[in-house]
């Protein structure tokens, strides 16, 4: 190498120049590429990665108490959890409670402590009203205002709510909680709900995906094999629902499927049934509406893949003596795998996050995770729970996606 370099030296200037130019051109191209991608990357980071990251962080964030009552929290960390905390801690608590009314701190603390026990908002309110400007003995004063301050458990609960991170929301999203001694245990049977909600979400999303595939595959096949004139017409019909609002389509299903709706009336008129069937406000209604709304997302990727498959392969298989079904199943179907993969994953992931459709056409047993996320975000302002439910759904989705990706890839390998 070095001899080469030495030998090349006399002619070095032009070649080095060329190299340099090449490098510069290369660098310029790279910069251009980065420059072209930068706005999108920046956009994604600002509106996607950062907000989602901060939202995920909220599922373990527990800084409410620390930010409003830093001295109380510090004092409680020293406390061994027996009897009552020291007088100094209680004095700090009284002072910080008085200050918390300004700037919304009281609301934060009250909301957070109410998760431990429903009594705290009222207790803090009563205490604040009766709080004197100064006191010789804060322990005594607080207990006089409300005897709850004289109980060890009151302070133990505040102590438990003070560390800067917590697993309570994540545990609660799995129907778990920490017991009195910090061990993880299941919550009361009557309150357990989220495990079944996650299961239900998966079942509904999976069911909708399978139905969409079963309905969409033949239609996409038809579209791909018909002459362009007819297939374009049909394609417009497939796309037509996209031009109507989701809410309108959902409401239309309610009108069609309700007890006195078109479907029930025509079934009764034709003598098939005597009493109206319950078709809406249950799982059936959810499947009807969701399949209808998501079907185009299955058909489009399938169609685009099928359009590219030459019919000669199947013809060749038949001419070589294969049964038409075998020719379809062994020769044609494997070529559509990428379309099936794209369609199913698209429909499944969109179905996972469905909120308004199940809320309107489902019953209480058909609500998916997003319903509860919306409830905690909008109604009770418990963003910790909303974030925890969202994070678990995200993790489950990623996990399923990985498994699915593996399966599809392996299948493709075997077939080809």
């Amino acid at each position, binding site marked *: 190498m070095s001899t080469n370099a030495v030998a090349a030296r006399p002619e070095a200037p032009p070649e080095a120049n060329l190299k340099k130019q090449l490098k510069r051109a290369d660098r310029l191209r790279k910069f251009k590429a980065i420059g072209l991608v930068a706005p999108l990357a920046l956009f994604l980071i600002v509106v996607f990665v950062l907000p989602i990251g901060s939202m995920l962080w909220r599922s373990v964030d527990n800084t409410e108490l620390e930010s409003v009552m830093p001295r109380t929290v510090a004092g409680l960390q020293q406390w061994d959890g027996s009897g009552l905390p020291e007088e100094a801690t209680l004095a700090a608590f009284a002072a910080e409670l008085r200050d918390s009314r300004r700037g919304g701190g009281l609301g934060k603390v009250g909301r957070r402590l109410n998760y431990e026990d429903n009594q705290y908002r009222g207790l803090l309110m009563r205490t604040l009203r009766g709080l004197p400007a100064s006191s010789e003995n804060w322990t005594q004063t607080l207990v006089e205002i409300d005897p709850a301050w004289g109980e060890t458990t009151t302070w133990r609960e505040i102590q438990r709510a003070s560390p800067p991170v917590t697993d309570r929301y994540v545990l609660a999203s799995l129907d778990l909680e920490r017991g009195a001694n910090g061990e993880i245990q299941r919550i009361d049977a*009557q309150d357990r709900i989220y495990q079944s909600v996650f299961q239900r979400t998966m079942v509904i999303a999976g069911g909708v995906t399978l139905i969409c595939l079963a309905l969409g595959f033949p239609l996409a096949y038809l579209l791909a094999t018909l002459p362009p004139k007819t297939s374009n017409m049909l394609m417009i019909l497939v796309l037509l629902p996209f031009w109507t609002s989701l809410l309108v389509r959902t409401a239309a299903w309610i009108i069609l499927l*309700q007890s006195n709706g078109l479907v029930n009336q025509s079934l009764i008129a034709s003598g098939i049934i005597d009493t109206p069937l319950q078709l809406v406000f249950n799982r059936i209604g959810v499947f009807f509406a969701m399949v209808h709304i998501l079907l185009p997302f299955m058909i489009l990727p399938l169609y685009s893949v099928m359009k590219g498959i030459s019919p000669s392969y199947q013809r060749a298989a038949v001419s070589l003596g294969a049964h038409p079904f075998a020719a379809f199943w062994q020769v044609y179907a494997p070529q559509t795998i990428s379309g099936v993969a794209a369609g199913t994953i698209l429909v499944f992931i969109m179905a996972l996050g469905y909120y308004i459709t199940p809320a309107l056409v489902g019953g209480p047993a058909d609500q998916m995770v997003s319903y509860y996320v919306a409830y905690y975000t909008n109604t009770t302002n418990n963003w910790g729970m909303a974030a925890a439910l969202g994070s678990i759904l995200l993790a489950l989705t990623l996990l399923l996606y990985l498994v699915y990706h593996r399966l599809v890839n392996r299948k493709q390998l075997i077939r080809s």
Partner: protein
Amino acid sequence: MKKNNLMRTRLARSVAVSGLLTAGLAASASAQALTVISFGGASGDAMNTAYYGPFVEETGIELTPGDYNGELSRIRAMVETGNVSWDLVEMESPEMVRGCFEGLFEPIDWQRLGLGDVLIDSAFDECGVGTFVWSTVLAYDADALDAAPTSWEDFWNVEDFPGTRGLRRGAKYTLEFALMADGVPNEDVYDVLMTEEGVDRAFAKLDELKEHIQWWEAGAQPPQWLVAGDVVMTSSYNGRIAAAQEEGNNLEIVWDGSLYDLDYWAIVSGSDNVDEAYQFIEFASQPENQAVYSSEIPYGPVHPDAIDQLDEEQARRMPTHADNLEGALAINTGFWVDYGEQLEQRFNAWATR
């Protein structure tokens, strides 16, 4: 570096100056005009006719109306930055209670308001003065039932009143109605619900009716279901039923055992126009003005005398008509703010089983 510093000082100075300017402008503007924020829409129009216009005419105080969607966060931001440009805000009760707890509103000085104790009881709150009442009632389809139900006990009686029932999908309203149906007197409902046994009792009562219930989610659903024949009776917001009645449907309301809630006026903490705000609240609480509001939109006036100034048919539809108020219960907002999350979770777990 030096240049940088200089720039920074200059920048800071100009920011400070412009800040002072805007603060000064805001102060001079707000010293004159009272900013009143409502939910807008049909209710806002009714307020404009009944309160805003006549108030300006009578007092000569300038008034800037505005509307919002009930977000407590906007008020929180104003109070926290000390830049309070809203004086008086219409609040729904849960937000009013939460905001009061966080110190976002001025506590109401009832002496200064000079209304005495003439308003209905739940119009008095620590940080809010009630302004109108809406109600959740038992409504039924008079064509579909042979006999008229008169209470929540009848609602639970599927033998004499066969047919599907509608209830709101959620613990709020539903648990109160269940306890009423189980014979708990109105005044004890929330005391019972605060105990574990009381909650068990409410859910046990709901168990009896579970298979006959169709759960509604949106306020438009109950009247629609009644009209379509999906349910024979249901809980519903009274305004929605009134609208359906006007369209000629034979729907009836049982006021006994209805749950009512109020929207409140609250004065934003740090407002420069507290005096004017009190004047406005007092003006808007006068019976003649309340009557004008309620004739524009079917929300009940909080002043009992206002009812007498409405025509008979309108008055009968108001949640605050003396006859309607008799067996009614005010929603305990504080209870739902404290216990809501826990009870909703239990409700959802129960409803799924």
